[in-house]
């Protein structure tokens, strides 16, 4: 019952502000019931297009941060590149939206103070700042490694410089920080910061590379995946990816309920978008021990 009390809520939330943040938009909602339940890494879903909308899928956004003002506000950052996100970008203060949250598995934080590297690409950096505050509160140190296509697509560079022990920025076009992908700087940052834990929020190919590299240094990675979702609550089965359980069995799991934050070494990054032949229930799959369910 304790878990149910902390579960997500569906609310009619009032828009406080919609503002441009370089290439992105940040939308702040007054949603106290979501704000008080929120833990860094969790997301919200919003119904877009109004009551007669033709867009049936909800839009899922990892929460940037929550604040106690107005009873509790929730902010998320997005790229207005489709009809749903453009509708959100055109909202004005005092408009209202149907919001559900907080949803999904948050970033787990270490028991003991640790040297943490927070890696983000594009608007994927958004959830890292609330996480950084929580880590710092618990005595961990925080280094940032943020990247993006160009300077206006690196979210939170200034905040990272202000709040992190160190902040390394890379852009594909070299308009801010080092030229190249974040992964090109990762090894150097790990060594200099003597990183013990990595938190990453980036596109799947970047997460795959980060996981592989961190594995060489035996550094655990918690990865927040950015996959398309339609319901956000586990009913539509759209946001699936292959993840190996601690029992060694690969399952096709839903990013919305089992993620969006995963232990990166358990995600089969190379198989995302496929059904691995050895996944539980894959075509031709057979239970290992026939009849063991009845064996008692």
């Amino acid at each position, binding site marked *: 019952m304790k878990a149910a009390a902390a579960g*997500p809520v569906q609310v009619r939330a009032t828009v406080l502000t919609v503002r441009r943040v370089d290439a992105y938009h940040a939308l702040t909602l007054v949603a106290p019931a979501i704000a008080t339940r929120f833990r860094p890494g969790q997301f919200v879903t919003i119904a877009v297009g109004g009551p007669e909308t033709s867009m049936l899928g909800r839009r899922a956004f990892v929460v940037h941060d929550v604040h106690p003002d107005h009873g509790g506000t929730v902010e998320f950052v997005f790229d207005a590149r489709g009809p749903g996100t453009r509708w959100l970008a055109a909202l004005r203060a005092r408009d209202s939206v149907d919001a559900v949250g907080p949803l999904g598995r948050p970033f787990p934080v270490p028991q003991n103070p640790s040297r943490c590297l927070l890696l983000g690409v594009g608007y994927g950096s958004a959830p890292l700042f609330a996480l950084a505050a929580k880590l710092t509160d618990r005595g961990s140190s925080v280094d940032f490694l943020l990247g993006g296509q160009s300077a206006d697509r690196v979210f939170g560079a200034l905040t990272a410089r202000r709040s992190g022990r160190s902040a390394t920025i890379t852009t594909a076009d070299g308009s801010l920080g080092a030229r190249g992908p974040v992964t090109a700087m990762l090894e150097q940052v790990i060594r200099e910061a003597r990183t013990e834990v990595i938190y990453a929020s980036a596109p799947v190919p970047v997460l795959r590379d980060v996981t592989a590299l961190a594995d060489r240094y035996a550094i655990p990675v918690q990865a927040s995946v950015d996959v398309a979702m339609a319901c956000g609550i586990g009913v539509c089965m759209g946001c699936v990816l292959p993840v190996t359980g601690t029992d060694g069995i690969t399952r*096709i799991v839903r990013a919305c309920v089992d993620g969006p934050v995963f232990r990166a070494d358990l995600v089969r990054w190379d198989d995302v978008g496929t059904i691995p032949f050895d996944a539980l*229930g894959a075509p031709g799959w057979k239970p290992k021990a026939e009849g063991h369910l009845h064996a008692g």
Partner: protein
Amino acid sequence: MPADMRARLGPVELPNPVLAAAGCAGAGRELAQFLDVARVGAIISKSIMTEPRTGNPAPRLAETPSGLLNSVGLQGPGIDAFLQRDLPWLLSHGARTVVSIAGQTIREYGALASRLSDAAGVSAVEINLSCPNAEDTGRLFALDPATAGSVVAAVRGSLRHDIPVFAKLSPDVTDIVAVAGACVEAGADGLSLINVLLGMVIDPGRLRPALAGAYGGLSGPAVRPVAVRCVWQVAEAFPDVPIIGTGGVRTGRDALELLLAGASLVGVGTAIVHDPSACSRVARELETELAALGADRVADVIGQAHGRGALGARGAYGIHGRGASELVNGPSGPSRQTG
């Protein structure tokens, strides 16, 4: 006065006629975070198969105008896990459960039905006939009256006699009444319609189909007129057979439309993706619609669009003055425009 919302599903009394449709309510737990599952008319489970199943690769979903195209591929835990974990949970939370079953052979359907006979908490069984028949080059069971009838007969013959069997029909047939007739003949206690329509989306950016499985099933308000037509035709042919009308219901008014067409129960499916509390909202809105019509109970409106009953003869909408009618929207007053 509020209308009496109670409805019947075979021997089981439901608090209202609004059901969570198969494949859109998860295992019930997912929805329980947003509504009381005991107050939903009934929860129709995801289609359960014998073995666990991964389903299809992603991307599995594409958004279309007022619709969703999906090729999830019946991902599920298999009947053992369903009986051990999901069904007891639903029962202990006061939900009435309709178990949707899916098979690859007629025998598999029968075997699933006999497993369900021993389980507690099965209010009804819905047969998902929109599955590829492994013994007939993957042709869907739902497409052929004789095949659909054979599945129904296998299920009816294996299932405890007091559990009603509903056959879920596909709209992708030339004569849905013929398939419905074969199912009724084979012993179906009721019919459920419609399942998804086969559709396709191509992503012009990638120059490839949007779904990994190329085709998918279309659902949502975009298909509602197809559902209304199918329910109407089947109700016209079999006025005494209970129908669960499903297809694009988003509001109480949409639910009313399917009841008027002849459904006695209404499934809410894709709307749940958009609004996790859709089932309770639709039931509430339907109650308001019935009250506005002056209907005392749900049964008063069932099949009324066929012009057989008392309310229809009274021209209820005219009497109660529904305001300006809109040609484009759902059931409305007599239109001044024609065609």
